[in-house]
């Protein structure tokens, strides 16, 4: 489990991962010297990756689809259209989130999916906002 100081830094990074260490020190009221140490500890434990979340439709990728499948090709792990893959319990074994330029690109991708169910995303209501 993390200390209260570590949790403070973690929440800052979750809100905005590009905040400078000086800003994080000000916001958490922790000494600058300890921020780097705390961040290294977090990066070696709970932080899996720092990333930049994008509005993909603003970049011309308008089709976001959730697929649920029974099987998964290992090649999918390298497929550039796939954003997320989870192993899940229940009727299906895998949850796959794909992002595509258009429907024809998605249809081509689906040829390799096998038995699946698909859900088109009409609107993103919330993205990666859980704050521990």
């Amino acid at each position: 489990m993390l200390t209260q100081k570590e949790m403070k830094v973690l929440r800052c990074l979750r809100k905005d991962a590009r905040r400078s260490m000086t800003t994080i020190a000000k916001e958490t009221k922790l000494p600058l010297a300890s921020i780097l140490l705390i961040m290294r500890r977090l990066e070696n434990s709970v932080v899996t990756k720092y990333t930049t979340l994008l509005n993909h439709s603003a970049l011309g990728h308008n089709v976001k689809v959730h697929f649920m499948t029974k099987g998964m090709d290992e090649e999918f792990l390298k497929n550039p259209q796939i954003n997320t893959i989870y192993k899940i319990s229940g009727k299906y074994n895998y949850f796959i989130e794909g992002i595509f330029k258009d429907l024809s690109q998605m249809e081509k991708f689906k040829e390799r999916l096998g038995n699946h169910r698909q859900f088109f995303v009409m609107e993103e209501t919330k993205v990666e906002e859980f704050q521990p």
Partner: protein
Amino acid sequence: MKDKDLLLLSFLRSNGRESLTNLSKKTKIPVSTIFDRLKYYEQDVISRHTALLDFSKLGYTAKAKILLKVRKEEREDLAKFFQNRKEINSADRINNGYDFIVEGIFKNVKELHLFMEILEEKFDIGEKQIFFVLDELLKENFLCGSPASLPKNYGEDI
């Protein structure tokens, strides 16, 4: 969008804390230009820079994808409900027999069931399906990595 800008975004997707100096070295774009491009893209293309977490290491042992169908009149209120609930990490409006797919993060299965009880007390849930996440094989990987791995013609017509 220029190829170099696309490259810049892909490096940020791989490491959202990459320094401007390193981004400049990798993309061969001057630091000052990167600073300006970031500010520009933060207006609409970039939603947020964040840290992805292994929630199980923080004591949240139950992560689930939940499919939900509600009455048409309740969809907007349900969307607001998800926006305000801390347990909900992500929520999408969807089609094909359901209205929402949400990702919930809970301390344990009991907490998930309590959440579902509250949800069903407040809304007329027609259908629901809960899938527990057993393992994350890939997370926020689109547009990550080397230019060769980017989707072909990613930036065209922009």
